[in-house]
């Protein structure tokens, strides 16, 4: 199984733990990723709000590059995944978007046809590779892990391509296959605060606080995410949140791929676990036994 790979800025920067865990996990399962040559910003961030035309062109350039490779494109970051999908939907539905994109790309000798499928790693893991193949690869079952599966908003809304919009279950199934316990977490698609954490901090942090506190209240000892922004928002401000809400908030926030790596027996520092601000207990079963 081979895919083109679009890392986006996060996976090379603040979210590098995602890449560090994704690549060895997929490779362990026989999936080959070929990083797109000369990729650029996906078009997410503030582009769509300031100039949607620029946003579409940025996204479409990456898609045009991927089309040359004639294979599906993996976009692990939720922001990239959404904006690349959005560009394809809009170019298909609105001729003026398609025209604008084509004319601009022509200057770079590129054409966009809309033939590449943008895929999320979760989709590939559970629907292409399958839970049985994943189970076979588990050498270190995640005993004692009580995981709050947190999907965030962008991989299922508005385009629910591989799971339910309101009650996604792909990660739940995955973690059970890894031998972990999954806690009931109805906030699994609630907003983490997004970029509000950077602009209207008290509103953004309140949203993060609710997610963290509810994960704790439901007995989770780790919260798993699919999105670099969610990971950052939830991981980085727990100190501020604790002092603002006069409550000790402590919850490790990791990527689902890091949990997979751990279950596959990969060393913690090879899957970016040392980068967590709130550290995760690697042997929670022992702690529970005490």
């Amino acid at each position, binding site marked *: 199984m081979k895919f083109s790979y679009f890392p986006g800025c996060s996976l090379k920067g603040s979210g590098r733990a995602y890449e560090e865990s994704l690549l060895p996990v997929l490779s362990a399962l026989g999936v080959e990723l070929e990083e797109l040559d000369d990729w650029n910003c996906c078009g997410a961030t503030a582009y769509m709000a300031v100039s949607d035309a620029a946003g579409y062109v940025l996204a479409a350039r990456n898609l045009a590059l991927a089309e040359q490779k004639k294979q599906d494109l993996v976009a692990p970051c939720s922001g990239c995944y959404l904006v690349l999908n959005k560009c394809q939907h809009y170019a298909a539905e609105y001729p003026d978007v398609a025209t604008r994109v084509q004319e601009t790309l022509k200057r770079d000798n590129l054409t966009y046809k809309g033939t590449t499928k943008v895929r999320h790693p979760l989709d590939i893991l559970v629907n292409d590779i399958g839970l049985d193949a994943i189970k076979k690869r588990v050498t270190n079952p995640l005993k004692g892990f009580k995981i709050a599966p947190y999907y965030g908003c962008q991989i299922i809304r508005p385009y629910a391509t591989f799971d339910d919009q*309101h009650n996604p279950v792909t990660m739940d199934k995955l973690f059970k296959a890894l031998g972990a316990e999954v806690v009931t977490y109805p906030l699994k698609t609630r907003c983490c605060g997004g970029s509000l954490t950077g602009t209207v901090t008290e509103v953004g942090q309140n949203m993060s606080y609710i997610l963290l506190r509810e994960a704790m209240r439901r007995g989770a000892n780790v919260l798993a995410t699919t999105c670099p922004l969610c990971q950052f928002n939830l991981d980085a401000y727990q100190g501020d949140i604790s002092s603002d809400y006069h409550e000790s908030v402590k919850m490790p926030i990791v990527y689902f791929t890091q949990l997979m790596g751990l279950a596959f027996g990969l060393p913690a520092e090879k899957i970016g676990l040392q980068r967590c601000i709130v550290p995760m207990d690697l042997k929670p079963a022992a702690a529970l036994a005490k």
Partner: protein
Amino acid sequence: MNEPTKTQPRIGVYICHCGTNIAGVVDCKAVAETAAQYPNVVVSRDYKYMCSDPGQALIQQDIKEHKLDRIVVSSCSPLLHEHTFRGACEKGGLNPYCFQMVNIREHDSWVHEKGAAATDKAKDLTRAAVSRVAHHKPLETKTTPIHPDVMIVGGGIAGIQAALTLANAGQHVYLVEREPTIGGYMAKFDKTFPTLDCAACILTPKMSAVGAHPNITLWTYSEVAKVDGFVGNYKVVVKRKPRYIIEDLCVGCNECVTACVFKEGKFEDEFNMGLSKRKPVYMPFPQATPPIVLIDPETCINVKTGKCKKTCVEACGDRQAIDFTQKAEMKEVQVGTIILATGFQPFDAKRIPQYGYGIYPNVYTSLEIERLVNASGPTEGHVVLRDGKTKPKSVGIVHCVGSRDNKTHRWCSRVCCMYSMKLAHLIKHHTDAEVFNFYIDIRAPGKGYEEFYEKLQEEGVHFIRGRVAEVTDWQMSKEEEGKLVIRVEDTLAGFVRRIPVDMVVLAVGLEPHADSQDVRRQFNISCSTEGWFLERHPKLAPVNTFTDGIFIAGACQGPKDIPDTVAQAGAAAAEALSLIKAGSIELEPNTAFVVAEECSGCKTCIPMCPYTAISRDDVKKVAVINEALCKGCGTCVAACPSGAIKQNLFDDDEITSEIEAILAK
């Protein structure tokens, strides 16, 4: 009668304005002027309403005055007025089939913008019809007798009402019901809105009247397996599922239920929406009709394994009503007319996971609450939470669950506002809880309905306008602890609210049965895109279908409350009676026939016919079509390798001349 001449037809063309429906888009005068130039057209006129009496008189007058022998009317759909204009031709002294209708409303003015193109399309369509009608031949209609017996499918309040109306008028009725008892959803209700009279008190007398009526053959636990034939002469096969009880011998004493090897009920009680347990042998509810038990093959140890002490048989004793050897039985009957009253199914609340049904125990559907507030329900009318003892202090009722929602069903289910308010009243009455209704709009457009809404407001029931976003258990304050929180944008107050409650009731909407498509195919009727059975005309033929002799009543046609259902059931019964009293019905002559001298007897056509109307005459070695069974679908006409099958009104020269004319510009 003017006999159409073979050499020189004399055609009259009439372009209808349909008020502004057509004339608002198509230049009708210009169409009529152009049509006057078409070959063989003697008269061409436009008129405001061709279907009106003066419009029809115009045709009749022209037939006489101008010796017309063919008529074309360009107006609306033939479904609506072909019959009208054929009648006008006949009154004018012309064979009604020397007529062709053109649809320039649904096919033109209603789907196009005003302009030359729309007018040109009307001209093209009219030219094709003029060319076609010149080849029409006079045809004779045939009549067929109407069998006086009626089959009614579905034993809810609609089927019950229709059955009693017909039976009281002296007709024999076969009432077929899928479940082990008649009564439908109404039998589960406690009170009915807006009068709050007890549902059982008004329904059960009708149920027992059905059971006891000499003119009604009641087949419960049965399904229609096959339908053949046509109006007046349907042959229906009904599958009677084995209930392992001999109906005539069971007296409904319930001794077998007491004696069953299961000491306690163990399986979900369907009648109580799973809120109580039943045994494998059970009576659906005390007033079930017929008042006899049944054995559920899915859960009975003896049916499944044959290894049971059969204490039930012992208890039944000399009555010997239990028969484990019973097999499904096929009954074939002849009826003249059929009424479909198959009802609805409630929307599955699990399809909206953010409302928490099946996730949080104290989220209920409205039908579960109907059983909870019912004195004969699983808690004898005590409204308690799933723990079986705690009275809720606050209850939220979420309206429009699976209704008025692009993601599930777009339609308004019509009954939910009213039943939600009824349940709000009953819950308040039983528990004195604070009750909140979360609504989009309150729809109370019935006799006494708005007054009921006002009464509820006076009782102190809260109404919050806004579509509920989510029912959840995450909390923001002490008072929310241990509660379900309803998150909603209060669109009147203009802010987002969190309302903690002990119990949530989801007012689920009505949707077509999952197998409604199979049923409609079986009876050869149409469905709307949503899956509701389609009436022949939304205003003027609300209980007829496009298949003669098959009528619809109740919620299978669309969501409706009990008063509307009963009214429609009466109407369907009256329509069936009107056919029966007429004694016979005219059949369309658009059937196929075999030109014997051209038929090679190859039998290609025989398996093609969906209505088994074709057989082979083994003496003459040719195919023969039974005109009474032929529905005029044309399959055999196209299939015949030697072109020996022809079809009235669809002759080759009629069709090719029509196509040639529409292509000739």
